[in-house]
C-alpha cells in the first residue's frame, strides 16, 4: 500500500524500525499528488526539491522526524510565498518563520507545500480564493468547506499526511467535517499565532488537520505552549497529549446542547450525531441535556466582531511595505485606494466595509459594543454548561458538503453554515471534528466534541475512543 495512506503514528514506527526512509514517504505522496492534485487543487505551492533534500538529512530521533506536513497559505515560513489566496500578497516571500512553523521544523518535520484557502480565511467553502477553488475529494462537484479547505482536501484526498489550518469561526473543523478528516481547534491561547496572518485576533487559532485523533494529539503536543512573541499564549508548561489510550469513555458526562439540534436540520446529519451520542451512552458515558441559550445570537455577534477586527488587521495591506503595489498612483492616498481595490476580492471587501461600519461613529455602541457584551453572555453559557458535563457533543456542520457555486451570491446563507462552530471561538474553548458517518450519497458527516478551556486531553480521549470503535476514519474517497 502507498505510504500516502498511512497515519503519522504508523509511519513514525516504521521509520524508527528502519523499515522505510523519509524519501519513500515523499515519493509516494508525490505520486498521489501527481494523480489527484489536478482535480482537487488543494495546494497553492509544492516543495518538491527542498522536501526531498530535507528527507535525506531528517533526524528521526525528533518527534516528527521525517514526516512531511502541509501548511495553510496564511502561515509565514521563511523564504516561501504566503499568499493568503489573495492577489494583494502576490510576490511576497516570508522573511521569517511563524512560531508554529519553527516548532514543526524543530520537531523534525518536512514542509511539503502550502494549501489553498478562502482569501484571508474569509469563507466557508474555499471558493473565495484568488488562486482558484478547491474540490471535495468525496465529490469533486462539491465544496471542501473552508476556509482551510485546501488543508482538509489534501489530508482527506491522501495527498498530505497532515496539514496545519487556522480556525476563526470553524475554518479547521467545518472543512474537516465536510472532507471526512480530523480537525482540532485548540483553546484560544494554547498555540502561538505569531506569524499567522491575522484575520480576527481575538478568535484566530492554529490547529492540525489529520487522518486520526492520535495524529492530531501528536501535532498538538508539538505546537502547544507559551510564546513570548504572542502574549495571548497561556503560561502553562508544555504538555504531551493522549499518551494513554485506554479507549474508555466510562463515567464521562457528555452534554447535548438543545440549541444544536434544530428542527429542519439535515436528517442524515442529525441521525449520525444521535447515533454517536448513543454510542457514548452504551459505553458508559452519561448523556446530559444542557442549554447554551445565547446560541441563536452567535452568527450576528461573530460577524460583527470578526469583521471589526479584520477591518483593522487588514489595514496593513496598503501597497507600501510588501505585496502588490498599484502603479501610477497620484499620491499616497490614491496608492492605498488603488492597491486595496485591485488587490482584495469581493468577500474581503464586503467584510472590511461591514467591519468599518460597525466600528464607525454613531453605530459602534449598537453593534460592536453590544456584540462584545453578548459575547460575554455566550461565554457564560459555556462556563455554566461545563459545570454539568465534561464534553459537549454536537454536529460540526448542519449539513454535508454543498455543491460548488450554490452560495457564492448569498453571503448570509454562507455565513449560516458556521452556526455550530463559531460559538466555540467566541467563548475561546477548544473543539474537535471527527468523522461519525456518511450520507447515502457517500458524503462525510462530522461530529464535534467541545471541551472546557484547556480541556484538550478530555476532547482527544473522547474522540479517540469513538474513532477507534468505528471504521469511518479508514474509508477512502473514490480515486
Amino acid at each position: 500500500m502507498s505510504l500516502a495512506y498511512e497515519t503519522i503514528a504508523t509511519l513514525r514506527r516504521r521509520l524508527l524500525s528502519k523499515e522505510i526512509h523519509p524519501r519513500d514517504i515523499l515519493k509516494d505522496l508525490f505520486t498521489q499528488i501527481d494523480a489527484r492534485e489536478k482535480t482537487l487543487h488543494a495546494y497553492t505551492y509544492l516543495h518538491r526539491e527542498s522536501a526531498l533534500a530535507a528527507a535525506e538529512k531528517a533526524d528521526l530521533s525528533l518527534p516528527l522526524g521525517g514526516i512531511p506536513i502541509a501548511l495553510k497559505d496564511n502561515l509565514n515560513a521563511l523564504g516561501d510565498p504566503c499568499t493568503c489566496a489573495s492577489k494583494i500578497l502576490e510576490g511576497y516571500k516570508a522573511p521569517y518563520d511563524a512560531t508554529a512553523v519553527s516548532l514543526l521544523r524543530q520537531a523534525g518535520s518536512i514542509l511539503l507545500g502550502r494549501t489553498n484557502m478562502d482569501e484571508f480565511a474569509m469563507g466557508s467553502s474555499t471558493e473565495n480564493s484568488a488562486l482558484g477553488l478547491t474540490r471535495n475529494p468525496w465529490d469533486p462537484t462539491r465544496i471542501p468547506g473552508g476556509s482551510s479547505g485546501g488543508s482538509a482536501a489534501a489530508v482527506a484526498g491522501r495527498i498530505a499526511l497532515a496539514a496545519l489550518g487556522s480556525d476563526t469561526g470553524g475554518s479547521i473543523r467545518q472543512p474537516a467535517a465536510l472532507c471526512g478528516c480530523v480537525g482540532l481547534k485548540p483553546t484560544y491561547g494554547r498555540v502561538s499565532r505569531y506569524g499567522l496572518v491575522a484575520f480576527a485576533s481575538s478568535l484566530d487559532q492554529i490547529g492540525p488537520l489529520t487522518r486520526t485523533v492520535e495524529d492530531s494529539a501528536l501535532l498538538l503536543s508539538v505546537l502547544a505552549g507559551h510564546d513570548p512573541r504572542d502574549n495571548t499564549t497561556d503560561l502553562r508548561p508544555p504538555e504531551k497529549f493522549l499518551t494513554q489510550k485506554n479507549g474508555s469513555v466510562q463515567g464521562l458526562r457528555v452534554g447535548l446542547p438543545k440549541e444544536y439540534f434544530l428542527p429542519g436540520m439535515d436528517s442524515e446529519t442529525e441521525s449520525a450525531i444521535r447515533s454517536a451520542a448513543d454510542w457514548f451512552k452504551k459505553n458508559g458515558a452519561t448523556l446530559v441535556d444542557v442549554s447554551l441559550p445565547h446560541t441563536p445570537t452567535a452568527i450576528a455577534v461573530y460577524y460583527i466582531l470578526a469583521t471589526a477586527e479584520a477591518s483593522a488587521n487588514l489595514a496593513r495591506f496598503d501597497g507600501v511595505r510588501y505585496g502588490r503595489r498599484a502603479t501610477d498612483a497620484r499620491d499616497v492616498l490614491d496608492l492605498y485606494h488603488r492597491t486595496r481595490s485591485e488587490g482584495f476580492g469581493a468577500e474581503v471587501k464586503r467584510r472590511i466595509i461591514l467591519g468599518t461600519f460597525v466600528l464607525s461613529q454613531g453605530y459602534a455602541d449598537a453593534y460592536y459594543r453590544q456584540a462584545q457584551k453578548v459575547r460575554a453572555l455566550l461565554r457564560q453559557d459555556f462556563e455554566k454548561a461545563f459545570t454539568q458535563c465534561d464534553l459537549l457533543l454536537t454536529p460540526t456542520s448542519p449539513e454535508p458538503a454543498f455543491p460548488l457555486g450554490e452560495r457564492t451570491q448569498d453571503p448570509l446563507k454562507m455565513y449560516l453554515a458556521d452556526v455550530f462552530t463559531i460559538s466555540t471561538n467566541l467563548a475561546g474553548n477548544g473543539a474537535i471534528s471527527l468523522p461519525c458517518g456518511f450520507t447515502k450519497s457517500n458524503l462525510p458527516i462530522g461530529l464535534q466534541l467541545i471541551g472546557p478551556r484547556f480541556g484538550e486531553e478530555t476532547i482527544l480521549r473522547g474522540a479517540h475512543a469513538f474513532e477507534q470503535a468505528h471504521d469511518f476514519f479508514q474509508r477512502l474517497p473514490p480515486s
Partner: protein
Amino acid sequence: MSAPQINISDVASLARLTLTPDETAKFSAQLSQILGHMETLSQIATGAVPEVTPPAQPALRQDIPTPSLSIEAALSNAPAQANDLILVPRILE
C-alpha cells in the same frame, strides 16, 4: 435598532477602498440583508454585562533588546526602496 441604510461609498472610503458601481449596488443589498440579521442583538438585555475585553496579559516580557529582522530582511518585500528606506509616492505638494 432597525437596520440602517449604509452609505457604502462613504464607509468604503474610510476603509481606503474605491468600489465600482456594480460592487456598490451588490454590497448595498447584501450588507443591508446582513445588518437586518444582526438586529436580533438589540433584543438581548445586556445592561449590566461587561464587554469582553482582551485576555489579561499572562506575562510581560523583560524589557531587554533581542535580535529582530535585519534591515535587508525587513526591506526584502518592499515594492520600491532606496538607501535602506521604502519609497512611496509624494505625500506633500
